[in-house]
Protein backbone atom coordinates (compact mmCIF):
# COMPACT_ATOMS: atom_id res chain seq x y z
CA UNK A 1 0.00 0.00 0.00
CA UNK A 2 2.83 2.34 0.98
CA UNK A 3 4.68 1.59 -2.25
CA UNK A 4 1.57 2.44 -4.23
CA UNK A 5 1.23 5.72 -2.40
CA UNK A 6 4.89 6.60 -3.08
CA UNK A 7 4.38 5.72 -6.76
CA UNK A 8 1.23 7.84 -7.08
CA UNK A 9 2.88 10.80 -5.33
CA UNK A 10 6.00 10.43 -7.49
CA UNK A 11 3.93 10.43 -10.68
CA UNK A 12 1.96 13.46 -9.46
CA UNK A 13 5.17 15.27 -8.53
CA UNK A 14 6.85 14.51 -11.87
CA UNK A 15 3.71 15.59 -13.76
CA UNK A 16 3.67 18.85 -11.84
CA UNK A 17 7.37 19.43 -12.63
CA UNK A 18 6.65 18.68 -16.30
CA UNK A 19 3.77 21.18 -16.39
CA UNK A 20 5.94 23.87 -14.73
CA UNK A 21 8.84 23.28 -17.14
CA UNK A 22 6.50 23.34 -20.16
CA UNK A 23 4.79 26.54 -19.01
CA UNK A 24 8.19 28.16 -18.39
CA UNK A 25 9.34 27.15 -21.88
CA UNK A 26 6.11 28.48 -23.38
CA UNK A 27 6.40 31.77 -21.52
CA UNK A 28 9.90 32.23 -22.92
CA UNK A 29 8.57 31.88 -26.48
CA UNK A 30 8.78 35.19 -28.28
CA UNK A 31 5.95 36.12 -30.59
CA UNK A 32 6.64 38.77 -33.21
CA UNK A 33 4.03 40.53 -35.30
CA UNK A 34 3.57 43.24 -37.89
CA UNK A 35 0.55 45.29 -38.89
CA UNK A 36 0.82 45.25 -42.71
CA UNK A 37 0.63 48.80 -44.01
CA UNK A 38 0.72 50.78 -47.21
CA UNK A 39 4.04 52.52 -46.77
CA UNK A 40 5.29 55.18 -49.12
CA UNK A 41 8.14 57.66 -48.97
CA UNK A 42 9.58 60.21 -51.37
CA UNK A 43 13.28 60.19 -52.10
CA UNK A 44 13.48 63.39 -50.02
CA UNK A 45 13.25 61.16 -46.94
CA UNK A 46 16.49 60.11 -45.32
CA UNK A 47 15.00 56.92 -43.89
CA UNK A 48 12.20 54.42 -44.12
CA UNK A 49 10.48 53.13 -40.98
CA UNK A 50 9.18 49.63 -40.33
CA UNK A 51 7.50 48.43 -37.13
CA UNK A 52 7.63 45.02 -35.44
CA UNK A 53 5.64 44.18 -32.29
CA UNK A 54 6.78 41.66 -29.68
CA UNK A 55 5.52 40.18 -26.43
CA UNK A 56 9.07 40.24 -25.04
CA UNK A 57 11.64 42.94 -24.33
CA UNK A 58 15.20 42.80 -25.66
CA UNK A 59 14.23 40.80 -28.73
CA UNK A 60 17.09 39.23 -30.69
CA UNK A 61 15.90 41.18 -33.76
CA UNK A 62 17.06 44.49 -32.27
CA UNK A 63 20.78 43.72 -32.16
CA UNK A 64 21.98 45.07 -35.50
CA UNK A 65 25.48 43.65 -35.05
CA UNK A 66 24.09 40.09 -34.97
CA UNK A 67 21.48 40.36 -37.70
CA UNK A 68 21.20 40.85 -41.42
CA UNK A 69 18.16 42.83 -42.58
CA UNK A 70 16.80 42.21 -46.09
CA UNK A 71 13.78 43.64 -47.83
CA UNK A 72 12.18 41.47 -50.48
CA UNK A 73 10.28 43.81 -52.81
CA UNK A 74 8.23 41.45 -55.02
CA UNK A 75 11.15 39.72 -56.80
CA UNK A 76 13.87 42.21 -55.88
CA UNK A 77 16.08 41.85 -52.80
CA UNK A 78 17.52 44.90 -51.03
CA UNK A 79 20.04 44.58 -48.19
CA UNK A 80 19.54 47.23 -45.52
CA UNK A 81 23.05 48.39 -44.60
CA UNK A 82 22.40 51.32 -42.33
CA UNK A 83 19.88 50.14 -39.74
CA UNK A 84 18.95 51.72 -36.44
CA UNK A 85 16.43 50.07 -34.11
CA UNK A 86 14.51 51.67 -31.27
CA UNK A 87 12.70 49.61 -28.62
CA UNK A 88 9.62 51.11 -26.96
CA UNK A 89 7.67 49.59 -24.09
CA UNK A 90 3.95 49.95 -24.73
CA UNK A 91 0.70 48.63 -23.25
CA UNK A 92 1.91 45.14 -22.36
CA UNK A 93 4.04 44.70 -25.47
CA UNK A 94 7.24 46.01 -27.06
CA UNK A 95 7.49 47.92 -30.30
CA UNK A 96 10.67 47.76 -32.38
CA UNK A 97 10.98 50.63 -34.85
CA UNK A 98 13.41 49.69 -37.60
CA UNK A 99 14.83 52.73 -39.35
CA UNK A 100 16.71 52.03 -42.56
CA UNK A 101 18.84 55.06 -43.36
CA UNK A 102 19.99 55.93 -46.88
CA UNK A 103 17.64 53.27 -48.18
CA UNK A 104 17.24 54.43 -51.76
CA UNK A 105 20.63 55.81 -52.72
CA UNK A 106 19.93 55.61 -56.44
CA UNK A 107 16.84 57.83 -56.07
CA UNK A 108 14.82 55.45 -58.20
CA UNK A 109 11.07 54.99 -58.03
CA UNK A 110 10.34 51.63 -56.36
CA UNK A 111 6.93 49.99 -56.23
CA UNK A 112 6.33 46.73 -54.38
CA UNK A 113 2.92 45.18 -53.78
CA UNK A 114 4.25 42.59 -51.40
CA UNK A 115 7.06 43.76 -49.16
CA UNK A 116 8.74 41.16 -46.93
CA UNK A 117 11.34 41.88 -44.27
CA UNK A 118 13.81 39.11 -43.50
CA UNK A 119 15.93 39.20 -40.37
CA UNK A 120 18.66 36.59 -40.51
CA UNK A 121 21.08 35.59 -37.76
CA UNK A 122 23.21 32.56 -36.93
CA UNK A 123 20.29 30.65 -35.42
CA UNK A 124 17.66 31.20 -38.09
CA UNK A 125 15.51 33.53 -40.15
CA UNK A 126 12.44 35.61 -39.34
CA UNK A 127 10.10 36.62 -42.16
CA UNK A 128 7.64 39.48 -41.74
CA UNK A 129 4.82 40.77 -43.93
CA UNK A 130 5.33 44.53 -44.06
CA UNK A 131 2.54 45.24 -46.56
CA UNK A 132 3.13 47.36 -49.66
CA UNK A 133 5.97 49.80 -50.20
CA UNK A 134 6.65 52.52 -52.72
CA UNK A 135 9.42 55.09 -53.02
CA UNK A 136 8.82 58.05 -55.31
CA UNK A 137 11.53 59.84 -57.21
CA UNK A 138 10.12 63.36 -57.23
CA UNK A 139 11.86 64.30 -60.47
CA UNK A 140 9.22 65.52 -62.91
CA UNK A 141 6.78 66.34 -60.11
CA UNK A 142 6.04 69.81 -58.84
CA UNK A 143 5.31 70.47 -55.14
CA UNK A 144 1.68 71.43 -54.69
CA UNK A 145 0.68 74.24 -52.33
CA UNK A 146 -1.98 73.48 -49.73
CA UNK A 147 -3.72 75.88 -47.34
CA UNK A 148 -5.22 73.03 -45.33
CA UNK A 149 -4.50 69.31 -45.41
CA UNK A 150 -5.39 66.36 -43.16
CA UNK A 151 -6.85 62.88 -43.41
CA UNK A 152 -10.16 61.37 -42.32
CA UNK A 153 -10.38 57.87 -40.88
CA UNK A 154 -13.41 55.64 -40.51
CA UNK A 155 -14.10 52.29 -38.84
CA UNK A 156 -14.33 49.46 -41.36
CA UNK A 157 -14.82 45.96 -39.89
CA UNK A 158 -13.85 47.28 -36.48
CA UNK A 159 -10.57 48.90 -37.52
CA UNK A 160 -9.78 52.50 -38.26
CA UNK A 161 -8.77 53.01 -41.93
CA UNK A 162 -7.92 56.11 -43.90
CA UNK A 163 -10.90 56.79 -46.18
CA UNK A 164 -10.14 60.20 -47.60
CA UNK A 165 -8.26 63.46 -47.42
CA UNK A 166 -9.49 66.97 -46.78
CA UNK A 167 -7.64 69.46 -48.90
CA UNK A 168 -7.69 73.16 -49.61
CA UNK A 169 -5.37 73.95 -52.51
CA UNK A 170 -3.48 77.22 -52.50
CA UNK A 171 -4.13 77.79 -56.20
CA UNK A 172 -7.12 77.29 -58.48
CA UNK A 173 -7.10 74.55 -61.10
CA UNK A 174 -9.55 73.33 -63.73
CA UNK A 175 -9.56 69.54 -63.74
CA UNK A 176 -8.49 66.82 -61.32
CA UNK A 177 -7.42 63.71 -63.19
CA UNK A 178 -6.37 61.61 -60.17
CA UNK A 179 -4.94 61.67 -56.66
CA UNK A 180 -3.04 58.82 -55.02
CA UNK A 181 -1.48 58.15 -51.61
CA UNK A 182 1.52 55.97 -52.38
CA UNK A 183 0.97 53.52 -55.23
CA UNK A 184 -1.85 51.31 -54.04
CA UNK A 185 -4.69 53.75 -53.48
CA UNK A 186 -6.65 56.00 -55.79
CA UNK A 187 -9.05 58.88 -55.45
CA UNK A 188 -12.70 58.07 -56.16
CA UNK A 189 -13.37 61.04 -58.41
CA UNK A 190 -17.09 60.35 -58.75
CA UNK A 191 -17.52 60.75 -54.96
CA UNK A 192 -15.42 63.90 -54.45
CA UNK A 193 -17.27 66.46 -52.37
CA UNK A 194 -16.53 70.11 -53.10
CA UNK A 195 -16.54 72.80 -50.42
CA UNK A 196 -16.64 70.04 -47.81
CA UNK A 197 -14.32 68.94 -45.01
CA UNK A 198 -14.86 66.09 -42.56
CA UNK A 199 -13.36 65.58 -39.09
CA UNK A 200 -10.37 63.30 -38.45
CA UNK A 201 -12.75 60.50 -37.48
CA UNK A 202 -15.96 60.09 -39.47
CA UNK A 203 -18.52 57.49 -40.46
CA UNK A 204 -17.85 57.19 -44.17
CA UNK A 205 -20.89 55.02 -44.95
CA UNK A 206 -23.36 57.42 -43.36
CA UNK A 207 -21.68 60.37 -45.11
CA UNK A 208 -21.14 58.70 -48.50
CA UNK A 209 -23.35 55.55 -48.68
CA UNK A 210 -21.93 54.35 -52.02
CA UNK A 211 -18.33 54.39 -50.71
CA UNK A 212 -16.42 51.17 -51.28
CA UNK A 213 -13.00 50.85 -49.66
CA UNK A 214 -11.60 48.19 -51.98
CA UNK A 215 -12.12 48.77 -55.69
CA UNK A 216 -10.27 49.24 -58.93
CA UNK A 217 -11.15 52.71 -60.09
CA UNK A 218 -11.44 53.88 -63.67
CA UNK A 219 -11.42 57.54 -62.81
CA UNK A 220 -12.97 60.13 -65.03
CA UNK A 221 -11.73 63.70 -64.88
CA UNK A 222 -13.60 65.90 -62.48
CA UNK A 223 -14.03 69.66 -62.81
CA UNK A 224 -12.62 71.49 -59.80
CA UNK A 225 -15.43 73.89 -59.02
CA UNK A 226 -13.75 74.70 -55.71
CA UNK A 227 -10.23 74.31 -54.32
CA UNK A 228 -11.70 72.94 -51.07
CA UNK A 229 -12.49 69.22 -51.35
CA UNK A 230 -12.97 65.97 -49.52
CA UNK A 231 -11.39 63.33 -51.73
CA UNK A 232 -12.39 59.76 -50.82
CA UNK A 233 -9.80 57.08 -51.58
CA UNK A 234 -10.09 53.41 -52.42
CA UNK A 235 -7.52 50.69 -51.92
CA UNK A 236 -6.56 49.21 -55.27
CA UNK A 237 -4.58 46.21 -53.96
CA UNK A 238 -5.52 45.37 -50.34
CA UNK A 239 -7.20 47.18 -47.48
CA UNK A 240 -4.12 47.89 -45.37
CA UNK A 241 -3.48 50.36 -42.60
CA UNK A 242 -2.27 53.71 -43.93
CA UNK A 243 -0.44 55.85 -41.40
CA UNK A 244 1.87 57.98 -43.50
CA UNK A 245 2.75 58.49 -47.14
CA UNK A 246 3.34 60.84 -50.06
CA UNK A 247 0.46 62.11 -52.17
CA UNK A 248 0.59 62.51 -55.94
CA UNK A 249 -1.85 64.49 -58.03
CA UNK A 250 -2.52 64.68 -61.72
CA UNK A 251 -4.17 68.04 -62.21
CA UNK A 252 -4.72 69.71 -65.59
CA UNK A 253 -2.56 66.87 -67.00
CA UNK A 254 0.42 67.95 -64.88
CA UNK A 255 2.08 65.89 -62.10
CA UNK A 256 2.22 67.34 -58.58
CA UNK A 257 3.14 65.87 -55.20
CA UNK A 258 2.85 66.55 -51.49
CA UNK A 259 5.82 65.22 -49.52
CA UNK A 260 5.63 62.26 -47.10
CA UNK A 261 3.09 63.22 -44.48
CA UNK A 262 2.22 61.52 -41.18
CA UNK A 263 -1.56 61.30 -41.19
CA UNK A 264 -1.38 59.66 -37.76
CA UNK A 265 1.55 60.82 -35.65
CA UNK A 266 1.40 58.28 -32.81
CA UNK A 267 2.52 54.68 -33.13
CA UNK A 268 -0.23 52.14 -33.80
CA UNK A 269 -1.38 50.32 -30.67
CA UNK A 270 -1.06 46.58 -31.20
CA UNK A 271 -4.02 45.99 -28.84
CA UNK A 272 -6.20 48.24 -31.01
CA UNK A 273 -5.47 46.38 -34.27
CA UNK A 274 -5.47 42.74 -33.15
CA UNK A 275 -7.38 41.50 -36.19
CA UNK A 276 -4.81 43.06 -38.53
CA UNK A 277 -1.76 41.48 -36.87
CA UNK A 278 0.35 39.10 -38.93
CA UNK A 279 2.66 36.80 -37.01
CA UNK A 280 6.26 36.63 -38.20
CA UNK A 281 7.47 33.26 -39.42
CA UNK A 282 10.61 31.70 -38.01
CA UNK A 283 12.78 29.04 -39.58
CA UNK A 284 15.80 27.76 -37.63
CA UNK A 285 19.02 26.83 -39.43
Amino acid at each position, binding site marked *: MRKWLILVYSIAFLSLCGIIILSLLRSSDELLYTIPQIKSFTNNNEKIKLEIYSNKPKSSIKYVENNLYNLILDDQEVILNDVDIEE*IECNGYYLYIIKALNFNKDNETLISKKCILEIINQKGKYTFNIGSLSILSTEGYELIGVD*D*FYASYSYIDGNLFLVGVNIELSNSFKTLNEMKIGSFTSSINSLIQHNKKYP*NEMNIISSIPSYNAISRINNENVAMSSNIMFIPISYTYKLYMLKEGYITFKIDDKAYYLDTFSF*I*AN*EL*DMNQYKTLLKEGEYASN
Partner: protein
Amino acid sequence: MKKILFLMLTFTILLITHYSINVYAATEEYTTYSEIMMSEGKLLMNFTDEEMDKMLEEIEGTIFSGVKVYEENSNVKATYISNTLYSVENKGSTDVTYDVVVSVETTNKVSFSASGSLSGNVSKGKSGGLKGDIGAKCSVDYSNDTTTSRKEKQTMKLVVEANSRAIVYLTGELLITNGVAANYFFWIKMCEGGFEFVTLQNQYSRIEKVKISWENGWY
Protein backbone atom coordinates in the same frame (compact mmCIF):
# COMPACT_ATOMS: atom_id res chain seq x y z
CA MET B 1 1.44 50.13 26.79
CA LYS B 2 4.50 49.86 24.57
CA LYS B 3 2.34 48.39 21.81
CA ILE B 4 -0.10 51.31 22.00
CA LEU B 5 2.76 53.79 21.88
CA PHE B 6 4.27 51.96 18.90
CA LEU B 7 0.92 52.06 17.06
CA MET B 8 0.49 55.78 17.80
CA LEU B 9 4.03 56.48 16.57
CA THR B 10 3.36 54.53 13.36
CA PHE B 11 0.16 56.48 12.69
CA THR B 12 1.92 59.79 13.36
CA ILE B 13 4.72 58.92 10.90
CA LEU B 14 2.13 57.82 8.32
CA LEU B 15 0.17 61.04 8.71
CA ILE B 16 3.30 63.20 8.44
CA THR B 17 4.55 61.42 5.31
CA HIS B 18 1.11 61.64 3.65
CA TYR B 19 0.30 65.24 4.48
CA SER B 20 3.72 66.80 4.08
CA ILE B 21 3.81 66.27 0.29
CA ASN B 22 0.54 67.81 -0.79
CA VAL B 23 1.27 71.17 -2.27
CA TYR B 24 1.82 70.65 -5.98
CA ALA B 25 -0.47 69.40 -8.71
CA ALA B 26 0.70 66.63 -10.99
CA THR B 27 0.99 67.96 -14.53
CA GLU B 28 0.71 65.87 -17.64
CA GLU B 29 1.32 66.42 -21.32
CA TYR B 30 -2.34 67.09 -22.15
CA THR B 31 -2.44 70.12 -19.85
CA THR B 32 -0.13 71.90 -22.31
CA TYR B 33 -2.48 71.45 -25.29
CA SER B 34 -3.66 74.76 -26.66
CA GLU B 35 -7.30 73.64 -26.71
CA ILE B 36 -9.39 70.73 -25.40
CA MET B 37 -13.06 70.68 -26.39
CA MET B 38 -15.21 68.27 -24.37
CA SER B 39 -18.56 67.18 -25.76
CA GLU B 40 -19.97 67.77 -22.25
CA GLY B 41 -18.66 68.64 -18.77
CA LYS B 42 -15.35 70.32 -18.07
CA LEU B 43 -11.73 69.65 -17.23
CA LEU B 44 -10.46 69.29 -13.66
CA MET B 45 -8.47 72.52 -13.94
CA ASN B 46 -11.70 74.43 -14.72
CA PHE B 47 -13.66 73.34 -11.64
CA THR B 48 -14.23 76.12 -9.11
CA ASP B 49 -13.53 75.63 -5.38
CA GLU B 50 -17.29 75.53 -4.73
CA GLU B 51 -17.76 72.81 -7.34
CA MET B 52 -14.90 70.80 -5.85
CA ASP B 53 -16.43 71.11 -2.36
CA LYS B 54 -19.79 69.96 -3.69
CA MET B 55 -18.20 66.92 -5.33
CA LEU B 56 -16.25 66.10 -2.15
CA GLU B 57 -19.57 65.97 -0.29
CA GLU B 58 -20.39 62.96 -2.49
CA ILE B 59 -17.58 60.94 -0.88
CA GLU B 60 -18.20 61.91 2.73
CA GLY B 61 -18.16 59.17 5.37
CA THR B 62 -15.22 57.00 6.31
CA ILE B 63 -14.32 53.49 5.27
CA PHE B 64 -11.80 51.10 6.86
CA SER B 65 -9.30 51.16 4.02
CA GLY B 66 -9.08 51.95 0.31
CA VAL B 67 -10.29 54.57 -2.10
CA LYS B 68 -13.67 56.30 -2.35
CA VAL B 69 -14.37 57.76 -5.76
CA TYR B 70 -16.99 60.07 -7.24
CA GLU B 71 -16.99 60.44 -11.03
CA GLU B 72 -18.28 63.74 -12.37
CA ASN B 73 -17.47 62.93 -16.02
CA SER B 74 -17.07 59.35 -17.17
CA ASN B 75 -15.33 58.62 -20.51
CA VAL B 76 -16.54 61.87 -22.05
CA LYS B 77 -15.41 62.34 -25.66
CA ALA B 78 -13.22 65.33 -26.43
CA THR B 79 -11.13 66.66 -29.26
CA TYR B 80 -7.89 68.56 -28.83
CA ILE B 81 -5.49 70.84 -30.67
CA SER B 82 -1.85 70.52 -29.72
CA ASN B 83 0.64 73.33 -29.65
CA THR B 84 2.15 74.20 -33.02
CA LEU B 85 4.87 71.74 -34.00
CA TYR B 86 6.23 73.83 -36.83
CA SER B 87 5.63 77.36 -38.03
CA VAL B 88 7.21 79.26 -40.89
CA GLU B 89 6.43 82.64 -42.44
CA ASN B 90 7.20 83.68 -45.99
CA LYS B 91 7.06 87.47 -46.04
CA GLY B 92 8.59 87.65 -49.51
CA SER B 93 6.85 88.18 -52.81
CA THR B 94 7.64 84.74 -54.31
CA ASP B 95 6.83 81.18 -53.23
CA VAL B 96 9.53 79.43 -51.17
CA THR B 97 10.09 75.70 -50.66
CA TYR B 98 11.10 74.86 -47.09
CA ASP B 99 12.58 71.66 -45.67
CA VAL B 100 10.28 71.28 -42.71
CA VAL B 101 11.64 69.30 -39.76
CA VAL B 102 8.76 68.51 -37.44
CA SER B 103 9.53 67.02 -34.06
CA VAL B 104 6.49 65.00 -33.05
CA GLU B 105 6.16 63.85 -29.46
CA THR B 106 3.96 60.82 -28.95
CA THR B 107 2.55 61.03 -25.46
CA ASN B 108 1.41 58.55 -22.85
CA LYS B 109 -1.67 56.60 -23.83
CA VAL B 110 -3.35 57.40 -20.52
CA SER B 111 -2.41 60.55 -18.62
CA PHE B 112 -3.32 61.23 -15.02
CA SER B 113 -3.44 64.43 -13.05
CA ALA B 114 -4.62 65.23 -9.55
CA SER B 115 -5.22 68.15 -7.24
CA GLY B 116 -5.36 68.73 -3.50
CA SER B 117 -3.62 66.36 -1.08
CA LEU B 118 -4.34 63.52 -3.54
CA SER B 119 -1.76 65.04 -5.87
CA GLY B 120 1.21 64.55 -3.54
CA ASN B 121 0.27 60.99 -2.76
CA VAL B 122 -0.21 59.80 -6.33
CA SER B 123 2.93 61.59 -7.49
CA LYS B 124 5.05 59.48 -5.17
CA GLY B 125 4.17 56.18 -6.77
CA LYS B 126 4.44 54.89 -10.30
CA SER B 127 1.42 54.48 -12.54
CA GLY B 128 0.03 51.66 -10.37
CA GLY B 129 -0.78 52.11 -6.67
CA LEU B 130 -3.31 54.81 -5.82
CA LYS B 131 -3.64 55.89 -9.48
CA GLY B 132 -4.31 52.28 -10.42
CA ASP B 133 -6.91 51.94 -7.63
CA ILE B 134 -8.79 55.07 -8.75
CA GLY B 135 -8.50 53.92 -12.37
CA ALA B 136 -9.97 50.52 -11.47
CA LYS B 137 -12.94 52.18 -9.73
CA CYS B 138 -13.54 54.29 -12.87
CA SER B 139 -12.93 51.36 -15.26
CA VAL B 140 -9.91 53.13 -16.73
CA ASP B 141 -6.96 50.85 -17.42
CA TYR B 142 -4.05 52.63 -15.81
CA SER B 143 -1.41 50.02 -15.20
CA ASN B 144 2.34 50.26 -14.92
CA ASP B 145 2.97 49.56 -18.57
CA THR B 146 1.49 52.62 -20.27
CA THR B 147 3.29 53.98 -23.32
CA THR B 148 6.12 56.34 -22.54
CA SER B 149 6.49 59.50 -24.55
CA ARG B 150 9.05 59.68 -27.35
CA LYS B 151 10.14 62.21 -29.93
CA GLU B 152 10.49 61.53 -33.62
CA LYS B 153 11.83 63.95 -36.19
CA GLN B 154 10.00 64.02 -39.50
CA THR B 155 11.19 65.86 -42.55
CA MET B 156 9.12 67.06 -45.49
CA LYS B 157 9.37 69.60 -48.28
CA LEU B 158 6.62 72.18 -48.15
CA VAL B 159 5.90 75.07 -50.45
CA VAL B 160 4.89 78.27 -48.66
CA GLU B 161 3.35 80.88 -50.91
CA ALA B 162 4.25 84.56 -50.79
CA ASN B 163 2.82 86.41 -47.78
CA SER B 164 1.79 83.17 -46.07
CA ARG B 165 2.39 81.49 -42.75
CA ALA B 166 2.37 77.68 -42.58
CA ILE B 167 1.82 75.75 -39.38
CA VAL B 168 1.82 72.04 -38.58
CA TYR B 169 -0.01 70.79 -35.51
CA LEU B 170 -1.71 67.72 -34.08
CA THR B 171 -5.38 67.16 -33.40
CA GLY B 172 -7.12 64.07 -32.10
CA GLU B 173 -9.66 62.37 -29.94
CA LEU B 174 -9.55 61.98 -26.16
CA LEU B 175 -11.65 60.24 -23.55
CA ILE B 176 -11.84 62.13 -20.26
CA THR B 177 -12.84 60.78 -16.85
CA ASN B 178 -12.64 63.08 -13.83
CA GLY B 179 -14.05 63.60 -10.36
CA VAL B 180 -12.87 63.43 -6.77
CA ALA B 181 -11.35 60.68 -4.65
CA ALA B 182 -10.30 60.11 -1.04
CA ASN B 183 -7.93 57.48 0.31
CA TYR B 184 -8.55 55.90 3.75
CA PHE B 185 -6.33 53.88 6.06
CA PHE B 186 -7.71 52.55 9.36
CA TRP B 187 -10.76 54.87 9.01
CA ILE B 188 -8.43 57.86 8.70
CA LYS B 189 -8.68 60.01 5.57
CA MET B 190 -5.09 60.13 4.31
CA CYS B 191 -5.70 62.38 1.31
CA GLU B 192 -8.43 63.71 -0.95
CA GLY B 193 -8.75 65.82 -4.07
CA GLY B 194 -9.66 65.93 -7.72
CA PHE B 195 -8.41 63.45 -10.30
CA GLU B 196 -8.49 63.21 -14.07
CA PHE B 197 -7.72 60.44 -16.55
CA VAL B 198 -7.17 61.43 -20.16
CA THR B 199 -7.00 58.57 -22.64
CA LEU B 200 -5.43 59.49 -25.95
CA GLN B 201 -7.09 57.80 -28.89
CA ASN B 202 -5.09 59.06 -31.87
CA GLN B 203 -2.87 61.96 -32.86
CA TYR B 204 -3.59 63.30 -36.36
CA SER B 205 -1.29 65.77 -38.14
CA ARG B 206 -2.63 68.81 -39.96
CA ILE B 207 -1.04 71.49 -42.17
CA GLU B 208 -2.65 74.90 -42.31
CA LYS B 209 -1.68 78.11 -44.03
CA VAL B 210 -2.94 81.61 -43.54
CA LYS B 211 -2.30 84.76 -45.53
CA ILE B 212 -0.29 87.37 -43.68
CA SER B 213 -2.14 90.65 -43.79
CA TRP B 214 -1.24 94.17 -42.73
CA GLU B 215 -4.53 94.38 -40.85
CA ASN B 216 -3.49 91.50 -38.55
CA GLY B 217 -0.45 93.52 -37.62
CA TRP B 218 1.95 90.62 -38.25
CA TYR B 219 4.44 92.85 -40.04
